[in-house]
């Protein structure tokens, strides 16, 4: 068995079909000629980590337990990032795998073949016990154990929402110094941040020399540095290693250097970063340094104005180039098994430019197509039995308005607040019947499940129906529907984890998406808010509205609708959950009798 999978995060079928129709994507268009292209039915909700996990396991979230980017602890209603769960053990708090359901990578290994998954979401921390080579994707934390924000070193008093701001001290007109905040350690008085001294010497109007740890970097204005390794002394015997890149963004009066989030150094990771350790080290040595953060394309830095559009795109390009080098390195020695690699730069580019710079977006589609052309030539000599798939986890859509779903629940009498608070702390749980946490999730405040639940078992079904009905009819001021579809948990999910999922899955209409505040369970004052962010497009709408794509070196026409459940079969010839494949006689209804009667008449039955 030999299977190659290229994952193009967020590759949208409508954009593909339009560009292919204009002969702009010739290498991908070739797949359509033998029926090897289809839209891909994606799971609900169409979120990156949910979707790629559903693809890997061939199950919906009920089968693997990742329902949303944000989950909640039902006892305390506390939100947490679903793909970065922690458990307290004998050695303190440790990251644990966000799911344990079997993937087709593990199935491949069970069949006796090697399997490699590059940058696949929700694969951090690595599971050393599994014989699958991994470099994890989305969900890999920074060196602080968080999703990661950058640091702006500046001479100004700038206010930034998320990015860490550090002010330079002036040591003369051309010399500046500061302390770069690094990882935290647990001290006697609580967490303690470790700092590294950092110095900047301005050389001229376009360059400066940065000195940090053992590195001396000659920075040129607007150009990213190479990846730099840093060491933070956490004590006499403990050193925490990290990597980052610096960018000199301003020397014109305002002296600014931006540092990417400090990331895990694969050779010195405090956690199980990759599997196996020797696999990540080999790639580091053979290909060179690579960024490790799950979301290395710094959309936050761009959103907050720390870096420009071009600097962001340069960063995306360099990440893409490095990943291709790693991929090429593994392709050279790929003989059998499964090799899968996800390229997610397009997703980040579309979040930031899909709404207003389709030229930038289309450039990336063409870039991916050229890459496919290079891979196609390598695959050309493969046998007809070898498999080759290119797929995406969902498409893309406009995000014009932010939906404050908890405000809607409050105004419609499903949620209750104690005072003027706009956070979960202010919810009157003795009266609240439903609440939203996550980007597509509503939970009922069910007695016996939630910490202060009040909704009895008898009330659940009518309440679900009532919310579904009212929410489905919600219209914006211009009569546009805000919601495309509301799905009930038990209609949408199957599998052992279904009971942990949200009671209602909210599928937003095109142009609408949950606000970030909704994700955290907050209750801002308005129902809807115009989205003026740089992040102007998204995919967390209804799953039916943002299908993905699948290209294959086989005919897909007879599949009818190709679903995420089909990917393990297309990849390794095996369904991990065949329960959704219904025999034809189950779906032909009354016609089955007519058919059988005809066959009897002809002497075939």
């Amino acid at each position, binding site marked *: 068995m030999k299977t190659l999978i290229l994952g193009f995060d967020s590759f949208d079928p409508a954009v593909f079909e339009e560009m292919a129709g204009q002969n702009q994507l010739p290498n991908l268009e070739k797949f359509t000629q033998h029926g090897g292209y289809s839209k891909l039915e994606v799971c609900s909700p169409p979120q990156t980590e949910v979707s790629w996990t559903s693809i890997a396991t061939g199950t919906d979230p009920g089968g693997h337990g990742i329902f949303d980017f944000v989950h909640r602890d039902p006892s305390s209603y506390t939100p947490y990032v679903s793909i970065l769960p922690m458990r307290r053990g004998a050695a303190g708090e440790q990251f644990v795998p966000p799911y344990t359901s079997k993937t087709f990578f593990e199935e491949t290994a069970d069949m006796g073949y090697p399997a490699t998954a590059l940058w696949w979401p929700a694969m951090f921390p690595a599971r050393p016990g599994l014989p699958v080579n991994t470099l994890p994707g989305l969900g890999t934390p920074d060196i602080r154990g968080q999703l990661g924000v950058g640091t702006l070193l500046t001479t100004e008093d700038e206010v930034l929402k998320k990015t860490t701001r550090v002010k330079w001290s002036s040591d003369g007109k051309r010399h500046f110094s500061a302390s770069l905040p690094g990882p935290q350690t647990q001290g006697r008085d609580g967490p303690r941040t470790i700092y590294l001294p950092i110095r900047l010497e301005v050389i001229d109007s376009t360059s400066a020399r940065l000195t940090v740890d053992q590195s001396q970097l000659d920075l040129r204005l607007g150009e990213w540095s190479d990846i730099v390794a840093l060491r933070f002394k956490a004590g006499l015997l403990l050193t925490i290693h990290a990597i980052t890149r610096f960018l000199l963004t301003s020397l014109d009066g305002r002296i600014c250097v931006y540092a990417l989030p400090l990331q895990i150094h694969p050779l010195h990771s405090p956690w199980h970063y990759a599997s196996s350790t020797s696999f990540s080290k080999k790639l580091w040595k053979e290909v060179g340094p690579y960024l490790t953060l799950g979301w290395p394309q710094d959309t936050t830095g761009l959103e907050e104005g720390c870096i420009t559009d071009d600097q962001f795109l340069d960063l995306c390009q360099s990440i893409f180039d490095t990943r291709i080098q790693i991929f090429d390195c593994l392709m050279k020695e790929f003989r059998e098994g499964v090799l899968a690699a996800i390229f997610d730069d397009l997703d980040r580019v579309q979040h930031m430019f899909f709404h207003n710079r389709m030229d930038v977006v289309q450039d990336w589609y063409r870039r991916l197509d050229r890459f496919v052309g290079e891979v196609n030539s390598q695959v050309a000599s493969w046998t007809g039995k070898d498999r080759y798939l290119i797929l995406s986890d969902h498409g893309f859509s406009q995000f014009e308005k932010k939906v404050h779903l908890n405000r809607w629940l409050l105004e419609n009498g499903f949620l209750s607040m104690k005072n003027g608070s706009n956070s979960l702390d202010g919810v009157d749980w003795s009266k609240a019947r439903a609440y939203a946490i996550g980007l597509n999730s509503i939970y009922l405040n069910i007695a016996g499940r939630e910490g202060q639940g009040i909704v009895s078992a008898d009330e659940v079904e009518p309440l679900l129906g009532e919310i579904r009905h009212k929410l489905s009819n919600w219209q914006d001021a211009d009569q546009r529907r805000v919601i495309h579809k509301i799905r009930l948990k038990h209609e949408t999910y199957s599998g052992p984890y279904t009971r942990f999922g949200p009671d209602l899955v909210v599928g937003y209409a095109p142009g609408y998406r949950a606000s970030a505040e909704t994700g955290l369970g907050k209750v801002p004052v308005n129902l809807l808010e115009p989205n003026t962010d740089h992040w102007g497009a998204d995919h967390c709408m209804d799953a039916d509205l943002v299908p993905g794509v699948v290209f294959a070196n086989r005919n897909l026409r*007879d599949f009818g609708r190709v679903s995420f459940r089909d990917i393990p*079969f297309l990849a390794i010839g095996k369904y991990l959950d065949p329960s959704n*494949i219904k025999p*034809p006689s189950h779906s*032909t209804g009354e016609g089955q009798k007519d058919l059988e009667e005809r066959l009897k008449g002809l002497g075939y*039955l």
Partner: protein
Amino acid sequence: MKLFSKPYQTNASNQPVIIVSGLPRSGTSMMMRILAEGGLPVLTDKIRRPDDDNPNGYFELEIVRQLKEGNFSWMNDANGKVVKVISALLEYLPQDHQYKIIFMERHSKETLASQKKMLDHRGQISKLSDEEMEQQFHHHLAALKPWLVRQQNMEVLFVNYNSLMAEPKLCCEKIVEFLDIPLNQSQMLAVPDTQLYRNRISIEE
């Protein structure tokens, strides 16, 4: 059970069962004959005798009709051999075998016209109009094909009857490639008989 055997022999226990399937009157009997001429051993009991509708024979195995009832006794002898199973019975094939299925497709109007003649010959009257029956077949195939291509133990080659009649050489090459078995292609090519292509419609119909 008597086998209509030909020279091709191999270690049959490791071989998939070769199934010829499709709607009745879609060319399944002709495909059985093509494979038999190519050298594959065919499972048939010859209970159903040749008639005006199939002058070269049906190549059927009567017991296959009991698949739905769970009678798989004939499967013990089926590996590496060809057997005809109409499309409506495919879902009842036991899961513990591997299958290579050659699925015949034919223009629905031709299939219906051929079936109608056969019903006439058998003195049967259809309750449904051609349009209604065409609709039922359409639903049947629309449900069957996505199921078929998703079966882990089945490999499928769809062969269009009309293409087979038009370009037999190309079709036979595809069949040999699909089965991955050396077959006598010149003998296979002698089977498609345009004289028997009687319910022809023009492509515009």
